[in-house]
């Protein structure tokens, strides 16, 4: 009876948040596309027919074909998989660095805080994209996973900040003192008390990291530093760019750009919806 009630208000607020719902639907569709990609479009590889190079959209090729005569619709569909994969890996890395750093800073404070927040500031100070570019160039092989890994490595500061501020806030709460006083194990304090409370802001942040990681991956691929063998949207744009088709075959660059936009917009809208729903000041009664 009472179990679900706690979130009832927030869920209601979210459901009535127009942008948030658009985002949620968008994300759901993207996940469905990624999961069911094999049922939507045949994967393409190698090269197609010479006569079918750079064909504009038609009933046969909905998004036209690329400079290798391959179906762009299929590439965009399969690119969804790469994108979600990149996002998930980046998010995973960002959490596994950001959360511990944030916790150490916010819970143990002192030297941990100085070092942790110093590192965070440094990572926020260094221009991220150029550094990712250089790091991508440093790595011997750039598979889509390593690209995602690098993006994750540079995405953790925002997570660390949020975890830290939540930890600091909760450490100042009496219930944490109560828990300490009751002799509850530190690990339990951290997980049950701090992390559970930090989970919502962290989640909101993750959806944003998800969105930015795709933009970054696309930029890296576009600059020719990504995984040349992956079906990522950035790679399609890179092919369009290198083949000089930006100005000649509009469909080559338009559809992957739209895909990126849908992805980024969906995740941003979703995070906005959640944030607004959780902030009672925003939803007008």
């Amino acid at each position: 009876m009472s179990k679900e009630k706690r979130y009832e208000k927030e869920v209601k607020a979210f459901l009535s948040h127009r942008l948030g719902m658009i985002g949620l639907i968008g994300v759901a569709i993207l996940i469905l596309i990624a999961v069911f990609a094999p049922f939507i479009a045949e994967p393409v590889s190698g090269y197609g027919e010479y006569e079918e190079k750079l064909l504009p959209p038609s009933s046969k090729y909905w998004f036209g074909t690329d400079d290798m005569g391959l179906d762009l619709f299929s590439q965009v569909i399969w690119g969804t998989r790469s994108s979600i994969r990149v996002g998930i890996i980046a998010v995973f890395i960002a959490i596994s660095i950001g959360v511990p750093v944030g916790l150490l800073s916010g819970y143990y404070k002192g030297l941990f805080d100085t070092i942790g927040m110093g590192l965070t500031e440094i990572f926020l100070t260094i221009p991220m994209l150029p550094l990712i570019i250089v790091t991508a160039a440093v790595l011997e092989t750039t598979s889509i996973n390593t690209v995602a890994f690098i993006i994750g490595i540079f995405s953790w500061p925002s997570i660390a900040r949020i975890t830290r501020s939540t930890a600091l806030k909760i450490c100042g709460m009496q219930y944490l003192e109560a828990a300490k006083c009751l002799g509850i194990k530190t690990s339990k304090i951290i997980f049950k008390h701090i992390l559970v409370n930090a989970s919502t802001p962290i989640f909101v942040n993750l959806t944003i990291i998800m969105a930015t990681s795709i933009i970054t991956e696309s930029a890296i691929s576009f600059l020719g530093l990504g995984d040349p063998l992956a079906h990522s949207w950035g790679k399609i744009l890179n092919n369009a760019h290198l083949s000089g088709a930006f100005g000649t075959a509009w469909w080559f660059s338009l559809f992957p750009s739209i895909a990126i936009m849908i992805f980024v917009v969906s995740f941003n809208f979703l995070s906005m919806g959640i944030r607004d729903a959780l902030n009672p000041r925003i939803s007008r009664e």
Partner: protein
Amino acid sequence: MGKYLQKRIVKGIITFFITITLTFLIVRLMPADPTTMLMDNRLTVAQQEQMLEDFGLDKPLPLQYVSFLGNLFKGDLGLSFMQKRPVMDIIKERLPWTLLLMIVTQAITLLIGIPLGVYSGYRRGSKIDHFINGISIFGISIFVPWLGFTLLYIFGYQLKMFPVGGAFTPGIEQGLPYILDVIKHLVLPVITLVFLYLANYVLYTRGSIIDVLSEDYIRTARAKGLKEKDVLWKHATKNAMIPTVTSAGMMLGSMVGGAVLTETVFAYPGVGRMIYQAVGQQDYPILQGAFIILALSVIIMNIVTDILCAYLDPRIKLE
């Protein structure tokens, strides 16, 4: 004030020091010998060794680091592998353009972003609020090179309103024609970057205006019978601007990322394009120098914005 400044500067120096050390290491972690790229395939072994020696790359890493730091203090960022000119000179040529691009972008983004954010925060939950947010989020979602190229195609090629790339026309007359020419070249890249960064300011301002509007002094101001317009645009906006200004300093780092792509598409002669080219050529001294200068700019900007915020908000005590 003095102490706050001191503290802020010391923190900045430490950040800077760690950043340059990190940069130094990353650049030297490259898997291939950094001179491989500049070795003409037909260079002899003796020439290769000479080249390593010329760039000080034959020494052990700690020694390289010491001389790197020593030179840095003298303002010497080393020689570019490819251009064989001091990196400092190369950056000096490029930096003003990037700064111009960024300052104009920042100014315009703030000028548009803050009012939009204030208004959508004030009308939170309304259609107009969703519209403003939706539009600005669309802005950050467009792939920059594609947006840039599309703008070039439409306004540069089709409508012939703006030049296709560059920063100014060669041989243009000094004075007003020159300034107008520079502005003409600036328009499209700035539009691209404004699109890219608008959302940040709109959302930041919106968030803080919502917080501010529920505070007591706003209620007091309303209760005193002040006009709603004045309450919103004078009292609330001033206070809501602080987090936005803070984020403006932080944004600088990420703006450089956008500059890499934008400057490349628009053939704009800034640091971003220089970085793009240096990556392609594996010109590590340039990359290293660019990072150092950029990190320094971001750190200084952060200090400046912190002080600016303290100035805007008397509640932040400069202790």
